[in-house]
């Protein structure tokens, strides 16, 4: 390993980190922009209904909206707790 390589490997490439962080963030935010604005409210209301019957918290419910040229999909996912005391 030459002396030059030694300097190269020790240099932190912060631009690379910045690019990776941005790519993830921007993709996420673009996705969120294309979602209908009623999603958070829908999620809250669904939670209230489900909580009437089962003890779950907000992160147990995910509401995802996907769209392509063909169709739009609304996906609802509820993770039930291990032991339900009904």
């Amino acid at each position: 390993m030459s002396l030059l390589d030694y300097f190269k490997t020790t240099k932190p490439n912060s631009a690379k980190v910045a690019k990776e962080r941005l790519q993830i963030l921007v993709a996420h935010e673009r996705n969120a922009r294309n979602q209908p604005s009623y999603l958070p409210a829908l999620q809250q209301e669904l939670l209230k209904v489900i909580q009437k019957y089962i003890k779950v918290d907000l992160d147990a419910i995910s509401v995802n909206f996907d769209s392509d040229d063909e169709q739009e999909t609304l996906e609802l996912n509820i993770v039930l707790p291990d032991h339900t005391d009904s």
Partner: protein
Amino acid sequence: MARIIVVTSGKGGVGKTTTSAAIAMGLAKKGHKTAVIDFDVGLRNLDLILGCERRVVYDFVNVINNEATLNQALIKDKRCNQLYILPASQTRDKDALTKEGVGKVLEELSKTFKYVVCDSPAGIERGANLAMYFADDAFVVTNPEVSSVRDSDRMLGNLSSKSKRAELGEEPIKEYLLLSRYDPKRVKLGAMLSVEDVQDILSLHLLGVIPESQSVLSASNAGEPIILDENSDAGQAYLDIVDRYLGEDKPHRFIDEAKKGLFGRLFRS
């Protein structure tokens, strides 16, 4: 019919006003009658950058409220007779701008001007939204820095959903990337996002790279748009940008570090 250009970024301090002043002066010097409007109501600064701050009598809000005519409010530049400035009001807030009012002023300007440059305020509030609402072209000024790139992407979302062209389902606003405060030396060291990095993320047509330059501060100190300093790197970058916008095919400059000659290496740091 005038072509309406919005200079936007989302984030503050990236060089919107510097860019607005430069490209408006550049277009005017090419012989195109150009108006440049300051949309930053309450925080007007375009007048300072263009060196006409002592000649402001009436402003944009006065025209919207029919307190002055457009001709009374427009300031004719002393260096170039094809350039006119419409200053923002300093005493009002951004709610003084209305969609109807702005639309009326732009329509009137369109009758006699070739280009209208709208200098957007930072943020995503009313002033910024109205600056881009009527635009045909958008110059997105971005610094090679995470927060600026993110905010630019947010503005791109607004341009494609909240503009008049978007609402009417017309041909979308043409979006261009202006990457400013670029430092090739730091990019080479891996300490700054490169042009390619920013383009990968924003997928925008690159209109030009403006290098980080001390001459920009000197120009604003003097109230002379940087494009008039033809010896400076930033001034030349804006000259190229105007040429490219007008359809000239010019190779990009200022992306790689300038090679220093023997003298440069001996006598400079």
